[in-house]
């Protein structure tokens, strides 16, 4: 297994008395990973540690196998989109991205070519000419992401990249993040808007009180919460009540309630099993199943359960 | 008997009158914030000290005057005649010295009046309320203005009152005239300070820079102007507000009563040439402050 792009071993970080991170052990490989957690849980601090902006008090941090704070050359492989809405405001978008790309070891001509290609990719081909001071919040976010990916880094850290962007920019940037992940880069995205994280990736890291609360695939993580069975809503044509009683026969199904004459709700501890069993049963009984949804199998419910339980 | 009731805690409408004039809470907030700063308390103590000193000085003079006025010692009266003048001297000195110390207090309290609001983006909060630009301006001026009123205008009145109270009968008639010029000049000083600090706060970016600029500006101007006047540039004298105030005070107090001795204020640096010009200069300072305030509010807020 190749070395992970990002790794943190027993990392703790304090800002004076304030605890930011407490004994974090984490390895992140290629693809898009969502970094979630309430405000003040230490998400930004972890990003800054991986970017070599901060030093861990305990444990060590590795970016592509090296210490990003002290070993400067490894930051060649890093693209960072910081959280703050800060720029060299007097520059135009193109100049800003080009200047920073030069710092990554590109000649003037190379940097200009890469900047043009990247600005096109983030949708700033025209508006990128404007001075950053006059740009809308959506354009500023696109500029910030452009400077993070112009030098084609294998690791991209995006700290709340969508804050303040309007719906059009959000849709474009989500598609861009998915594409970056598919190119095999390790993309770590922190965001508070869960349904947008779901649209980007299936893999999340969840931090709470400075500790690693959960990590892995959203679906499997949700499955691990035994004390929170899945609710599944079914729209059924034909005799719902009879079909409902049959459902009780399925393994893992705990309760079946009749919401209306054509709608049923069941709770089960294994959604995967229900996803196989229920349609088979429906077919056996000649019942048409026009809706099979589980409202609390999504990331928002996972987040809510993980936050409510200590 | 108790009825069984369950009340929701959620949102509830608010009835009742809304009588308060919006300027008033703005002024009160300025004091509340000012009072939290240690520097305010210290500078207020200084003001109180200055008032105490002048009070003692005034009372002791008048008691001595009263004692010497009796019987055989009448001959000494003429020598002590300057004591009457010295009552004017006390008031004039008080207004000038307190002008500086009050400048400290008002700088600490009111330097952030407009500057902090602008830096924190608070204009949107103020002007999404039902208040007009005039309310805001008057509120800030009221908040800043009542400080010099408390430390300059009112104490001058108190000093004048004690002077009238203690003065021997003969002198009392002369002192009655003194009320209007004394309190008037104090009010003029108060107005200059208020308009000055509020104007500067409207122009400035950070309250700390405004505060230092105001205090340093006053000291620098009076120092530089004194130097320039000594080296022959008479006209520069009008640039320093403190010097203008002193001229107006001396002029007013002299006009107060014609029988006063000519060398009224021995040892005090003399004022500018013509008191009228000084008055004009002070008026210009006040106008400049108010203009800066209006310009800033018009620029930041397009509210009706």
């Amino acid at each position, binding site marked *: 297994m190749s070395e992970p792009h990002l790794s943190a071993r027993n990392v703790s970080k304090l800002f004076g008395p304030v605890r930011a991170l407490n004994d974090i052990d984490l390895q992140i490989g290629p693809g898009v990973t969502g970094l979630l957690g309430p405000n003040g849980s230490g998400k930004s601090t972890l990003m800054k540690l991986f970017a070599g902006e901060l030093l861990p008090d305990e444990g060590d941090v590795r970016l592509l196998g090296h210490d990003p704070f002290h070993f400067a050359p490894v930051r060649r492989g890093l693209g960072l989109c910081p959280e703050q809405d800060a720029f060299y405001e007097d520059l135009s978008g193109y100049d800003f991205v080009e200047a920073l790309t030069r710092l990554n070891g590109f000649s003037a001509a190379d940097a200009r070519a890469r900047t043009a290609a990247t600005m096109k990719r983030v949708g700033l081909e025209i508006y990128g000419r404007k001075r950053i001071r006059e740009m809308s919040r959506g354009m500023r976010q696109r500029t910030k992401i452009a400077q993070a990916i112009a030098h084609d880094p294998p690791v991209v850290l995006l700290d709340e990249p969508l804050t303040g962007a309007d719906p059009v920019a959000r849709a474009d940037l989500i598609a861009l993040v998915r594409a970056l992940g598919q190119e095999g880069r390790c993309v770590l995205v922190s965001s*508070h808007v869960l349904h947008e994280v779901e649209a980007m990736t299936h893999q999340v890291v969840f931090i709470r009180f400075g500790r690693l609360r959960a990590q892995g695939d959203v679906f499997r993580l949700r499955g691990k919460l035994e004390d929170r069975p899945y609710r599944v809503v079914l729209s059924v044509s034909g005799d719902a009540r009879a079909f409902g009683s049959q459902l009780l026969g399925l393994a893992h199904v705990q309760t079946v309630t009749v919401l209306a004459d054509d709608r049923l709700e069941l709770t089960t501890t294994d959604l995967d099993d229900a996803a196989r069993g229920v349609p088979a049963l429906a077919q056996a009984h000649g019942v048409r199943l026009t809706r099979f949804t*589980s409202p609390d199998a999504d990331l928002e419910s996972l987040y809510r359960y993980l936050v409510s339980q200590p | 008997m108790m009825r069984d009731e369950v009340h929701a805690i959620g949102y509830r409408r608010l009835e009742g009158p809304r009588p308060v004039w919006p300027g008033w809470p703005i002024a009160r907030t300025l004091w509340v914030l000012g009072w939290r700063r240690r520097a305010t308390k210290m500078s207020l103590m200084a003001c109180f000290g200055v008032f105490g000193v002048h009070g003692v000085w005034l009372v002791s003079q008048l008691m001595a005057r009263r004692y010497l006025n009796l019987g055989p010692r009448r001959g000494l009266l003429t020598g002590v005649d300057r004591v009457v003048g010295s009552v004017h001297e006390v008031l004039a000195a008080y207004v000038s010295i307190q002008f500086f110390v009050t400048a400290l207090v008002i700088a600490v309290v009111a330097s952030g009046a407009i500057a902090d609001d602008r830096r924190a983006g608070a204009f949107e909060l103020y002007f999404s309320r039902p208040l007009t630009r005039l309310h805001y301006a008057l509120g800030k001026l009221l908040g800043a203005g009542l400080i010099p009123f408390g430390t300059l205008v009112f104490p001058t009145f108190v000093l004048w009152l004690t002077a009238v109270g203690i003065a021997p009968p003969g002198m009392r008639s002369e002192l009655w005239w003194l009320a209007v010029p004394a309190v008037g000049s104090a009010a003029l000083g108060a107005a200059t300070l208020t308009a000055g600090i509020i104007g500067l706060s409207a122009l400035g970016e950070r309250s700390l820079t405004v505060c230092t600029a105001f205090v340093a500006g006053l000291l620098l101007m009076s120092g530089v102007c004194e130097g320039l006047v000594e080296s022959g540039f008479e006209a520069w004298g009008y640039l320093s507000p403190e010097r203008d105030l002193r001229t107006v005070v001396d002029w007013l107090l002299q006009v107060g009563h014609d029988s006063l001795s000519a060398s009224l204020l021995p040892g005090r640096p003399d004022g500018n040439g013509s008191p009228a010009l000084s008055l004009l200069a002070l008026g210009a300072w006040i106008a400049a402050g108010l203009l800066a305030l209006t310009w800033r509010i018009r620029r930041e807020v397009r509210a009706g």
Partner: protein
Amino acid sequence: MALLELTDVSKRYGATQALDAVSCALDGRAIGLLGPNGAGKTTLMKVLLGLDAPDTGLVRVLGIDARQAPTEVRGRLGYAAEGPGRLPGLSGLESVALAGELCGLRRRTALLRAHDMLDLVGLDEARYRLVETYSTGMHQRVKVAMALVHDPDLVLLDEPTSGLDPESRDELLDLIVHLREGGGPAVILSTHLLHDVERTCDAVLIMQRGQVRFAGPIAALQQPATGRWTVRTAFPAPALADALRAHGAMAAPGERPEAWTVTLPPGADPTLIWQAAASAQISVVHLAPQTDSLEQAFLGAIKETAS
């Protein structure tokens, strides 16, 4: 009387035409104000508040003409601005109380009302701390409390949920729903998160380049079921698409990595999808008729997407 009546309102700032002949009448308990950056949302709010007089046109808010009586309008309107605006040096409680006093309330009434509002927005012990020490979430709560303290009839919230973590966002959206259902003020919510609007609002005003693209109830905006189905598997499974094509259905990638938008051949029903899934041994954990999410409707409403 309608909440808002705008007839032919336009406003120009130098080169940009912020509002371009906007005419609409809106009613409802909670209205979503949507539009890309620079669509004129904030200008519209400022015009409603009488903070900015429009060049032309008539603005009536709650039946009051905002040009004639701006202060009266602002007395009955609450506004939680977007920026980090706060009153420097004050605690949360003092800020809200001062906001009340600025509307004419006596000090003691304002203080009691401030406590009520801070309870409503869920700012407990921290209300006594200075506002400078607040997190973004707490700032947002104070701003909402300041907008409600003088009991307005209409509250304008400008991007109240930006920067909030999921927990605080939930609480704020629940509060908006509570206001909508309760006897309290109506709400105009200007935001970029269409998800929040879907959850709290019943009507929507979509703007772009200073013009109204759509004004009316959300239901009218979302076309009925289009015969397409959204299907999601537990894990991203390209094999499902092949199985579906084998069964004659069309499958296009959906909003999420593990989602598909399936178009069935005419006359077929979803059992075909179940059969395809069973044949490929892939468990489908989500199947539902696809209704245009507000996002598709929004993107459809604003034709050119440059922003």
